[in-house]
């Protein structure tokens, strides 16, 4: 599904992502772990097209998407959530989600001026899709709330829903369980599994090891921009290089 070859991103002298090659399979949960500043978010930014790589190649479903614009990549079916959730706080939850399906519509300014049938149909379609993804993430009972008033975990779910509204095949989740409690983390893991059951491939960055170990099919470990290991949770758990990196960086290991 996603094939990365020798991917490198340099910021000045710093190689945030350094010569990383990996392959992610469809319909699996792939995790990326690593200490703070390891280059995980940068890796996502490259895959999603938010920034061009310095070197290397990204292949998605057999298509070379290296350096392609972010919005085009989104239309090809790669969606993402961000490390910090940002939503339209003053609007209702449902209102936030309607724009998620915009990329599957065609209406332009002219349709807006004459209020064309195409626009009305597409608006209906977007609204229906918003309701659908809201149901999917289990929040249909709070669709009418002002977004500022819902809990952190609910906001994470809304962010998932927004990504799902784009009809993605691959979803990149950047620390979805950041800042929420263990029970909520458990629920969120359930939601991630449900996404995969519905045919979405997931790639996630997470610091919470319990969650990763029970959830992931495949794990890639980044450290200082380099891939130091990849494998199943068991392989990673017992990999001396990984243990070294985590002990060396004195955080995250406990999490």
């Amino acid at each position, binding site marked *: 599904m996603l094939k990365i070859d020798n991917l490198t991103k340099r910021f000045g002298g710093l190689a945030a992502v350094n010569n990383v090659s990996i392959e992610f399979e469809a319909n699996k949960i792939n995790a990326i772990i690593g200490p703070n500043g390891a280059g995980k978010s940068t890796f996502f930014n490259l895959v999603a097209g*938010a920034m061009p790589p310095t070197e290397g190649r990204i292949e998605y479903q057999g298509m070379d998407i290296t350096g392609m614009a972010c919005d085009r990549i989104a239309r090809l079916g790669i969606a993402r959530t*961000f490390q910090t959730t940002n939503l339209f706080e003053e609007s209702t939850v449902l209102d936030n989600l309607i724009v998620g399906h*915009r990329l599957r519509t065609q209406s332009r300014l002219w349709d807006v001026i004459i209020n064309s049938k195409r626009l009305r149909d597409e608006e209906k379609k977007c609204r229906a899709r918003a309701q659908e993804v809201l149901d999917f993430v289990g929040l249909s009972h709070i669709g009418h709330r002002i977004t500022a008033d819902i809990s952190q975990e609910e906001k994470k779910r809304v962010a998932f829903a927004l990504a799902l509204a*784009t009809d993605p095949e691959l979803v990149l989740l950047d620390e979805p369980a950041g800042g929420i409690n263990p029970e909520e983390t458990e629920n969120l893991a359930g939601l991630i599994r449900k996404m995969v059951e519905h045919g979405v491939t997931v790639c996630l960055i997470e610091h919470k090891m319990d969650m990763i170990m029970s959830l992931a099919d495949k794990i890639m470990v980044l450290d200082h921009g380099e891939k130091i290991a990849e494998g199943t949770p068991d392989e990673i758990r017992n990999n001396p290089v990984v243990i070294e990196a985590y002990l060396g960086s004195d955080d995250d290991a406990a999490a």
Partner: protein
Amino acid sequence: MNALQKISDFFMTPAMKILLILAAVLFPFVASNEYQIYVMALAFVWAIAVYGMNIITGLCGQLNLAHGGFFAIGAYTLSILAVDHGWGFWWAFLAAGGAGALLGFLAGVVSLRLKEHYFAIFTLCVGFIIYLLIDKWEALTHGALGIIDIPAPNGFGLVDFTQTTPFYYLALTFMVLSIWLAARIANSLLGRSFRAIRISDDLAESLGINLMRNKVLAFVLSTTYASVAGALYAGLVRFIGPAEAEVVHTFDMITYLLVGGIGTLMGPLIGTMAITWLTQSLQFLEEYRMIVFGPMLVVLVIFFPRGVVGSFLTWRGRRLAAAQDAQAESAAKKKPKANNTVNSSAREAGNHA
């Protein structure tokens, strides 16, 4: 349902819109003198420009400080064509709108490459360049002398727009049209794309929204609004000078937006009206006006950062949500069994959701 809620519900009905339009139509009959009608017509003209600013700054989140410059471009295009080249008012008016759109497109394509405050600073410079061109390019703009004897809109022998009251109705018509279009845009998928950009460029892009195309479109819409307003202004005041392009007008419009409610539909109108009439009523204070006015503005921005309309909408949204929650709860109480299944299925959805 208490009285407050009833009133707030009424604000959102079509009847309220009709009432507002009716009040505006009747205003010339109740105004105590012609000057008041003139001030109101002028406020309508400014409100059109503020609606334009609301598209790029309110909906799309890009602080455009060249807005006053595009107002002046509209005023000057109309005046130069009508006075120096003998164009009929309405042809010159169309050209003014076109000039605003075209120059807005060129300025937008360049300046929207920059983000956030860099964009704001760049547009401040664009606005200043427009001012300098108007002030110094005497062959085209008459320089500091300004342009006089600008014709009033052609009434085709039916109405005389040199008179204040007919012009008032003309300005009202244009303003209502502007609000209508702004509402169409704001409530459509296009407006939603703009608002996604306002949340964050990164988020919008990740949702497949082409940043440049949408930002340029919002920018062109806003400069078109500004230049149409500028052209109407020239037709009302009938004398313009380089002062029209001074940046202070842009900051005035930002004030209107902030007071009324940035990004809201009725905010630009309410802000423009409120400040216009407040300024009028504080006129006796002359230059000390700002001593009263400044603190009022500060208090407003601190306590109502989303302006009058924005604060109202949030308040109302919360009430509606609370009412809906209460309703769901009482419905659940009536049917305890149904409640259980609903709750457990909701919980289930939450769990393996």
